[in-house]
């Protein structure tokens, strides 16, 4: 009912976003920073930004999310935020005593021209950064890109500020996991470890935002990539970056800075995506794929073949982040489903071309748009109905309005749990995705079946 006013007729909107399919850079930077051990993210701008980002992350992960703010006033917006930030750095190390402060900008501090390189240098010069402590930073104006861009920039900031080359190889593989759930990061690590490869994954939010309940509150949870490991990324044998939008900036920066070769892949979602990840690990580390991984793969293929009769020709609408949508589209197409409407809020021309390439042999027209919104997705669905909708929490409005089976996927998911504990990447994650898709479709089939066709075996 909420969206009953969405008109079917589509008009060009150049100046207006309705029901966004993205949010802004700083929250992505904050999420990435939480994947560094002992790190306190710091928002350089007004208080509200920090409060909103913390609330949204708290709601998504159901975990305490700590971050400090420069608390801009009217004065700071006129005279610059340098004194706020230097004072903030001093205060943060004095009270909260983190290992690292990860500073990101907001639209306000960017526009008044605060230069983080210069300000953090000043903080160092004035002795505000205790010995052995670190500051990393990234420029993340809210009016450029999206939360995915902010994530990418902060990960690149980790490389810029900390990665070092010492000529002594560490024998490890760098993995940049992309803007995925803590559970996904854990699974990406597990696959590499199953193959006997020692890795440095950054950022790593597993055990930070999906840690166990111990009855004790720790401001800095145990998980996260350590500063030592981040420094050491410059001595690794290679980097595997998963997801172009979220991870390539850091991988390329590390290649330039320390000469660590990188391989940029799509996210390992579904069979082919995971195959390519496993294969890249195999080649780069010169190892063979163990039976356990082959078995996981075989199980996924088995379930797909067992249930493929329910997939073919089903139309799907998907919204989310570009890296996830590309991998998801490939997976859906591979199990004979038709992703007919694909929307991301994140800007980027290449995205549309990639999706069209992946779907060009389908016997249906595919609508795809980057830098778009959920209103557009809804209008497309009104004009061409679908059998399934995959989107973040906000998709529930469309799903209810149009009575479509719905799977929550991506960021944010505010009204369900599980996403931070169960992966959707790798073969095991593929299995979970297939289960979710089948549940949604078959539950609808049960619900809609006339009494005489309501069957036990499906």
């Amino acid at each position, binding site marked *: *009912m*909420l969206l009953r*006013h969405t008109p079917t007729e589509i008009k060009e*909107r150049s*100046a*207006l*976003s*309705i*029901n*966004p399919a*993205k*949010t*802004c850079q700083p929250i992505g930077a904050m999420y990435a920073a939480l994947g560094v051990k002992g790190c306190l993210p*710091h928002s350089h701008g*007004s*208080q*509200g*930004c*920090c*409060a*909103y980002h913390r*609330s949204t992350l*708290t709601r998504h992960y159901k*975990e*305490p999310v*700590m*971050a*400090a*703010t*420069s*608390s*801009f*006033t*009217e004065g*700071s*917006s006129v005279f610059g935020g340098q004194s*706020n930030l230097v004072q*903030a750095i*001093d*205060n*943060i190390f*004095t*009270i*909260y005593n983190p290992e690292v402060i990860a500073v990101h900008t907001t*639209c*306000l501090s960017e*526009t*008044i021209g605060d230069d983080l390189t210069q300000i953090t240098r000043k903080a160092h010069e004035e002795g505000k950064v205790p010995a052995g402590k670190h500051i990393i930073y990234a420029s993340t*104006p*809210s*009016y*450029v890109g*999206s939360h995915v861009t902010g994530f990418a920039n902060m990960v690149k900031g980790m490389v810029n500020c900390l990665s070092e080359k010492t000529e002594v190889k560490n024998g490890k593989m760098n993995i940049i996991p992309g803007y995925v759930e803590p559970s996904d990061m854990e699974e990406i690590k597990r696959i590499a470890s199953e193959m006997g490869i020692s890795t440095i994954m950054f950022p790593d939010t597993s055990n930070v935002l999906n840690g166990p*309940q*111990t*009855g*004790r*509150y720790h401001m800095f949870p145990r998980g996260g990539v350590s500063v030592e490991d981040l420094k050491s990324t410059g001595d690794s044998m290679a980097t595997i970056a998963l997801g172009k939008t979220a991870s390539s900036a850091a991988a390329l920066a590390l290649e330039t800075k320390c000469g660590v070769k990188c391989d940029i892949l799509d996210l390992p979602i579904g069979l082919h995506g995971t195959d390519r990840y496993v294969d890249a690990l195999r080649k780069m580390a010169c190892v063979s794929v163990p039976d356990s991984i082959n078995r996981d793969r075989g199980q996924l293929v088995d379930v797909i073949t067992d249930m493929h009769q329910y997939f073919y020709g089903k139309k799907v609408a998907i919204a989310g982040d570009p890296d996830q949508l590309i991998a998801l589209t490939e997976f859906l197409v591979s199990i004979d489903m038709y992703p007919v409407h694909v929307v991301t*809020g994140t800007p980027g021309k290449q995205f549309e071309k990639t999706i069209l390439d992946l779907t060009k042999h389908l016997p249906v027209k595919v609508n795809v748009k980057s830098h778009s919104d959920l209103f557009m997705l809804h209008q497309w669905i009104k004009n061409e109905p679908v059998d399934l909708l995959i989107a973040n929490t*906000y998709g529930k409005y469309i799903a209810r309005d149009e009575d479509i089976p719905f799977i929550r996927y991506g960021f944010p998911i505010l009204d369900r749990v599980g996403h931070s504990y169960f992966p959707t990447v790798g073969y095991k994650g593929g299995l979970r995705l297939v289960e979710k898709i089948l549940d949604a479709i078959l539950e609808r089939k049960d619900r809609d079946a006339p009494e005489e066709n309501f069957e036990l075996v499906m």
Partner: protein
Amino acid sequence: MTDISILDERKKQIFTKGNDDFEMKCESQSVSGSVSQRACVFCGSRVVLYPIADALHLVHGPIGCAAYTWDIRGALSSGPQLHRLSFSTDLRETNVIFGGEKKLYAALTQLIEMYKPKAAFVYATCIVGVIGDDVDSICRKVTEETGIPVIPVHSEGFKGTKKDGYAAACQALFTLFDNFSPNMDEKPKFAINILGEFNIGGEAWIIKEYYRRMGVNIISVMTGDGRVDDIRNAPLASLNVVQCSGSMTGLAKMMKEKFGIPYIQVSYFGVEDTAKALYDVAEFFGDAELLKNTSEMIKAEIAEIHPEVLSIRRQLEGRKAAVYVGGAFKAFSLLKALKNIGMDVVVIGSQTGAKEDYKTLKEICDPGTIIVDDASSLELAKFIIEKKADLVIGGVKERPIAYKMGIGFCDHNHERKIPLAGFEGMLHFAREVRNTVLSPVWKLFPARNEVKKESSGKAA
């Protein structure tokens, strides 16, 4: 956790009754570098105005400000749902350089054509204040062209605290009365406006029903389940009844000055405060029939909930609560309501309390209670552990911290799904507190049980 240090700048914002003797420092910006729980001016304006369901709410700024405030508060509407959609001018880099006025104009005209709202509110965010878009003139122009009030809300985030956002919202509401005068000869009998009630979980509906049974007419609710036309008729009321004092007293004052409408401050939380609110209104009109209805209704309502509240009280007797909420007025009511169900308040604080509020808090709380202004999560956690609280009452960001410490939690802010207003609200509240405080899940933690065993071992 209990050994964290407190910044010198913050020492005057933390007060222990019986130990300290100073005036609370408050209503100041948070210290740079603190993990503050506070939001910004924009947030203040947005939460006050957005429950007006048949108005358009357009956020002029980068996408984040609109995305983070998209339908986050559960302000329910009995009719239109326009307020729950998210509209943004989605400012890009080029707009920041060349200005966003054209974009704002285009967005406004397109939206008004599409949704035909009764009024439009345009929220100016941080960045708009910095790049200097003339939001006022665009709004004037669109008002002239479309004939509906298009009202700028000056809510640039950096311009102060959330409280300044409330003031901007009051100013915007007041603008609705411009060029619109209801027929004052047709003033209804016993008519009031309800101010500072946002219909979270349907609370305005409960309160309206009490007044209906008393025989009091409601002209408008600002802004829960709000309608533009009702609000414009607000000058027809004889009394403004202000609940959320922090947000709406400003408007009540302006209306008193311009329309001569007096106002009273009330709270609909807890049995005592709800009863007092309803009696205050009845006494204001002084009508015998009205007073009789009121007293009968209140007696009936209390009789209805009393036995269960009493039984819950027996279960909770002596348990301790820590309260950290937005406005201080809410804190007063919570303190009384918690006492009503047998709980001791050991920590109490607010994000936006004024000096007067803290004076009152100091008077009404028990010795040893810690009173804090603008606390960080870490400070809260420290006090909660020190004072051995069994319950935390707070907002979104406090919930997982409480849970991590193995303590029950009750939301008194955005994530509330059950109405806590009025007599039935008190029963909901009591049940919720009991359910969380006495939940067996707190016994599942290894660490907490170890601590308990250790301490009981020492005692023996």
